[in-house]
């Protein structure tokens, strides 16, 4: 019978997730042997028509990576949803919002005025801005709408499975595709990674003391790091305890603290709040001034605790940004 058709698409993403698929190296041959890749615009010259022409549910599975920022990405997400039996959010951006979602700390207007006017390297005296429709002597050029906020895939369409990671590791991808082919898939909505925190598989696990008390927080680039000792014990903010395992602790293995790209375990609603709670509970300081002094070691709490998860967090967006957006919407 015909090989199952699968598709890849990328929205607000850096292309790293596509890289991860290519990183399957020779294993990709096994994948191509088993399936027909009918839509992969970043790798080959596929056109939107190749998908619209397909009947609904024709694609067995589509892997969408990248968050949703523009109207075009929304449209493609809805299109691929209609055409696929399984829609899989591939990577941290699609699952949680990823690095692009950090933009949700700022209003749409603040972002546009910085990029097109205020940034030091920008010379734009006439304050020209990209427009959705531009008429250029008889031709009309259109651009997709730049949405108020960055959204996760499941804030736009129904998502069946999530492949976490920035990017997801080849091992995870292989396992997911394997499960897909064998039809042995867990219930819809599952995150295809172990539901236990990273510490379980971290090589430095044994060196973490049981009575760790933080007297200061340090930045990774300012401290000579001991390759064996647990990074938290060295005063770094390592998100390992609040992040799913499954990546084989690549970052701690490379002498860098985990930054939480695999997202929270299923029992946690807000990864940032949980890590913040665990970290500050183990601090030594008792009086407010001392506490403030120690917390100053984490200059950007949102960037640290919500590096990948801002769009999927409970607050989702800066309230003033949301207010500005709603004003415009009125």
């Amino acid at each position, binding site marked *: 019978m015909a090989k199952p058709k699968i598709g890849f698409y990328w929205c607000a993403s850096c292309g790293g997730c596509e890289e991860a698929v290519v990183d399957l190296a020779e294993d990709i041959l096994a994948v191509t042997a088993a399936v027909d890749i009918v839509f992969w615009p970043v790798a080959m010259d596929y056109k939107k028509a190749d998908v619209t022409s397909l009947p609904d549910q024709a694609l067995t599975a589509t892997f969408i990576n990248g968050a949703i920022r523009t109207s075009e990405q929304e449209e493609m997400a809805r299109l691929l949803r209609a055409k696929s039996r399984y829609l899989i959010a591939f990577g941290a951006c699609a699952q949680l919002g990823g690095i692009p979602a950090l933009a949700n700390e700022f209003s749409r207007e603040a972002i546009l005025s910085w990029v097109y006017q205020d940034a030091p390297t920008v010379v734009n005296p006439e304050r020209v801005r990209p427009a959705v429709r531009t008429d250029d002597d008889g031709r009309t050029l259109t651009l997709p709408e730049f949405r108020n906020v960055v959204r996760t895939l499941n804030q736009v369409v129904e998502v069946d499975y999530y492949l976490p990671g920035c990017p997801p590791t080849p091992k995870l991808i292989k396992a997911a595709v394997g499960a897909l082919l064998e039809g042995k898939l867990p219930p819809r909505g599952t995150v*295809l990674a172990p539901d236990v925190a990273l510490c379980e598989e971290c090589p430095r696990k044994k060196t973490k003391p049981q009575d760790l008390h933080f007297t200061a927080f340090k930045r990774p680039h300012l401290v000579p790091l001991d390759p064996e000792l647990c990074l938290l014990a060295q005063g770094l903010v390592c998100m390992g305890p609040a992040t799913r395992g499954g990546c084989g602790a690549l970052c701690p293995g490379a002498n860098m603290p985990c930054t939480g790209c695999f997202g929270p375990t299923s029992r946690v609603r807000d990864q940032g709040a949980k890590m913040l709670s665990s970290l500050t509970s183990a601090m030594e300081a*008792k009086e*407010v001034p001392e506490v403030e002094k120690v917390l100053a070691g984490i200059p950007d709490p949102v960037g640290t605790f919500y590096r990948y998860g801002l769009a999927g967090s*409970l*607050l989702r967006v800066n309230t003033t940004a949301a207010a500005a957006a709603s004003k415009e919407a009125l």
Partner: protein
Amino acid sequence: MPENNWQPRIVAFFCSWCTYTAADLAGVSRLKYAPNIRIIRLMCSGRVDPQFVLEALARGADGVLIGGCHPGDCHYAEGNFKTLRRYQMLRRVLGAMGISEERIRLEWISASEGERVRMVINDLVERIRILGPLDLPGRLAACDAELGASAQALRLPQYRQPAADLREVIHG
């Protein structure tokens, strides 16, 4: 802010040993305070998970009040110190997310300070009334209006998935 009949809604997490008892004492003493507060009882202020505060705000609360025993009085020795540290960091996250730090408040109120419960609640309701509604659900809905008809409701990650079958799927 237009003085419509908007009433601020404040969620309070009170520790059972001190602040909840003080609130009971305020009741027994018939002290009057604004009805805008909804008290949730926990065994210690140390049980207040920052997620609870964010959840309350995300669900439409205009302010959150955490009540605990005075430092050194905690029935469990140090629960309130952990609360203090979490609170100081959480305030900074809220500030960065555009939520005024006056909307959430940590107060030490012992079992005998019924009067203080009244004073703190009235003061907080008055300050929130001046700040105006936070109304996160409303703001996010307005923000999502651009999605048109298919605007998704607030997506909550799913819970308690059966991990077992997942394990052999991944590790094969």
